[in-house]
């Protein structure tokens, strides 16, 4: 097996992302045209319009051009950061999205931190105390984590930790206090998933010969676990971090609604309810592109840290 140079791997991985980005743009472009009925009606809003207005709107949004030309215009608009204006607010879509982007990314990453810290420690503890009540308890928590809907967990925590025992603020943004509860809600199901993965790969690693060797050398159990076993046990968990980010982003979208936080989720939901198509297209496109980019970065970082990825 030949070893692929890092640069070749990076280039290949970048090239693979191109059809995906094109696909995302085609899908968001087609959203307007896939909607039952004439797109003109969507852009006009719900009010009745005259034939002249139809011609005018058709011209304004380029709907009188052939489909491929409309797509070309759409893509060149995106490339210049122009997503058009919202039908409802008349504000440039780019401005609305830029404003909402940061709170969502902040929440998703805070969720990632919770997921990793909580998930990895739960998994390790469960593996070390394999087949004891500690293990069972950890796995029950993990099972609850994959079974509780994000919005239910959010409402329960709100009730107990904001209303009944006012430890955390219920709504608002800004400092860390406001972020803790939503971040936990976003990260919990990923934490549960990571805990299951870490536990099973940890159990596998602890049976390996090199772990036995390390123990036989007389190393302290703590050293064996953290230095020898954990490092290898974490690889499968880390490998799925990219996939986890989809769940975190989706979780953030829902959690925003529960905690009345600003963000892409609220923008998207309001836009869908207002049938504000330029805004819907922009939000969907930006969220998908962020996700693809994060996945790309995660993949590339593995290639740097774990040379085995580059083989084959």
């Amino acid at each position: 097996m030949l070893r692929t140079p890092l640069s070749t791997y990076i280039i290949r991985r970048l090239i693979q992302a191109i059809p995906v980005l094109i696909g995302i743009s085609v899908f968001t472009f087609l959203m307007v045209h896939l909607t039952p009925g004439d797109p003109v009606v969507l852009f006009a809003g719900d009010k009745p319009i005259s034939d002249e207005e139809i011609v005018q709107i058709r011209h304004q949004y380029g709907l009188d051009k052939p489909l491929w030309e409309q797509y070309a215009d759409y893509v060149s608009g995106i490339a210049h950061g122009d997503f058009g204006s919202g039908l409802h607010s008349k504000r440039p879509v780019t401005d609305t999205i830029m404003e909402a982007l940061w709170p969502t990314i902040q929440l998703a990453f805070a969720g990632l931190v919770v997921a990793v810290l909580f998930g990895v420690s739960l998994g390790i503890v469960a593996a070390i105390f394999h087949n004891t009540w500690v293990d069972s308890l950890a796995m029950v928590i993990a099972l609850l984590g994959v079974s509780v809907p994000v919005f239910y967990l959010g409402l329960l925590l709100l009730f107990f930790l904001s209303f009944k025992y006012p430890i955390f603020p219920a709504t608002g943004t800004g400092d860390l206090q406001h972020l803790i509860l939503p971040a936990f809600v976003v990260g919990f199901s990923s934490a549960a998933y990571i805990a299951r993965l870490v536990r099973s790969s940890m159990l596998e690693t602890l049976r390996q010969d090199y772990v036995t060797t390390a123990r036989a050398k007389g190393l302290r159990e703590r050293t064996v676990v953290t230095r020898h076993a954990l490092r290898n046990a974490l690889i499968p968990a880390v490998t799925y971090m990219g996939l986890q980010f989809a769940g975190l982003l989706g979780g953030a979208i829902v959690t925003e609604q529960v905690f009345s936080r600003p963000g892409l989720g609220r923008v998207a939901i309001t836009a869908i309810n207002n049938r504000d198509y330029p805004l819907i297209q922009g939000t969907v496109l930006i969220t998908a592109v962020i996700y693809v980019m994060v996945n790309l970065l995660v993949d590339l970082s593995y290639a740097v840290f774990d040379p085995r990825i580059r083989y084959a």
Partner: protein
Amino acid sequence: MPESQAATIAPSTQIASLELKSRSGGLARDTFRKLTRNPGAVAGLIVLCLIVLATIFAPTIAPYDPIEQDTQTIRQAPSREHLNGTDTFGRDVFSRVLYGGRQSLPVGLIAVGIAGVVGVLTGLAAGYYGRWVDTVTMRMVDIMLAFPGILLAMSIVAILGTSLFNLMLAVGIAAIPEYTRVVRSSVLSAREAEYVTAARVSGASNSRIMLKHIFPNILPPVIVLATLGMAGAIILGSTLSFLGLGIQPPTPEWGNMMSDGRTLMRHFWWVSFFPGLAIMLTVLSINLIGDGLRDALDPRLHNR
């Protein structure tokens, strides 16, 4: 989240590609026997059966009409008259939870059906034919996976509008790529098997080989994915309804009931608490059954 569950299944279960065709009745019996020895799965089966029965017999069990409003009984706490309290419109929350399952459960079932059929067919074709069929299918899958599931489902609702059928379609389409991927990778290992060569030599057509020979052999991972996927679909469906993009009020559905109670949580917790509990118990029991099935169907875990 469904994304993560698919990832756990894919690598471990696809190994279960045994020649099962001749003893498929045996496999079902074998699996069921193993399932009944798994206390978690048994508990899951019992709870799920109770929930399904309660949903089916909702008109008989429900003490009140789920939609009729009553100004005399607004936002009452749980009591003997109203087991789970009443909501803003004076409706009995317990009755609405019973009826709510008639929306939430079929959404999960039909969505998994849509995703399963499309995913199995595309996965079979991609894995079996390879070449450009594989390339085109997997690029499509990559594009669909570029959208977090909830976002893809939201986009589909944005395109088609809100209705029960569109909700099923949205949740179903969002789940297709997981099935395609799992089926494809199972087919890749199965198509080199001797029974496939034997079938081809004896003159079987491609579609016959795929559906009659390969498909039964890749069934175990598909069954596990469909079971765990049902849990994911119920969560996604109720999430969309919670966000106001699924089943619309006044029709009771667990997600939209929780949305009604979202702003009431501080003083009238029961309006959201009980529908949420219904979702969680349903999903929990399905996950327990799914985990049990995975253990029963995955030979790698047998001797642990």
